[in-house]
């Protein structure tokens, strides 16, 4: 994390792989934080949607990871980081409709292959890095001004 960030708030949520009961709890808390901070409702909705999809990906596809929420006067940042298994072909993963989600996720209404494209659409800046065997990091930024 940069020290010049001027972070006014930073929260860290540990996300357990395969825990569909808790999935969405972190995104819900992030949404409530933003509402309490008086952020514009349309922007709160975009951050909430992207955070929820990011959190679901950690639950569905990763071996476990974390969701990090940061806000400073200029930008809201959401980082989803995990400890593997990583993504082999990022270009393919970004395609609408591409999904390797198991039936357990599909039964709940996920696994349509729309998560990553939707995160990209909601955010002002979208960066994804992944290394097979290591892990994946998705960084989303939302401008406040």
């Amino acid at each position, binding site marked *: 994390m940069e020290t010049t960030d001027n972070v006014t708030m930073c929260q860290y949520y540990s996300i357990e792989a395969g825990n569909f009961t808790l999935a*969405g709890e972190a995104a*819900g808390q992030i949404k409530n934080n933003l509402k309490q901070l008086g952020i514009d409702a349309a922007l709160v909705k975009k951050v909430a949607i992207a955070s929820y999809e990011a959190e679901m990906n950690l639950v569905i596809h990763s071996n476990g990871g974390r969701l990090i929420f940061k806000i400073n006067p200029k930008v809201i940042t959401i980082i989803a980081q995990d400890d593997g298994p990583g993504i082999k072909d990022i270009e393919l993963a970004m395609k609408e409709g591409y999904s390797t989600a198991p039936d357990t996720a599909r*039964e709940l*209404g*996920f696994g*349509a292959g729309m*998560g990553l494209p939707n995160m990209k659409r909601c955010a002002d800046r979208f960066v994804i890095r992944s290394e097979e065997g290591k892990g994946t990091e998705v960084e989303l930024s939302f401008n406040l001004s």
Partner: protein
Amino acid sequence: MTIQEIINILEADLFCGEDMLNKDILSACGSDLMSDVLAFVKDHTILLTGLTNPHVIRTAEMMDIAAIVFVRGKRPSEEIIQMAADRNIAVLMTRHSLFVACGLLYQSGLRGEVL
């Protein structure tokens, strides 16, 4: 169209959100794919779905969706109703299928997102 009018059109039961009956609804989204719902861009929306798991409520929460209509007479559990009530989301149930429920609302003037 108000939530009360939606209840009348769908001959629906209301499980929570009695204080929201006069809320104005401008659009609807009918889907069992929560990721598709999460990509829906309109506001003042209701969600019609055949799924009754907690992620339907979570999805509605993230989307600021005012009401959820469970179709085909799928009765939500107490846990689901409580979860929705805590988030100020009205919960309805209709015996109609997803297709027919959407059709009845469309016929009455409610619209969706035109892609």
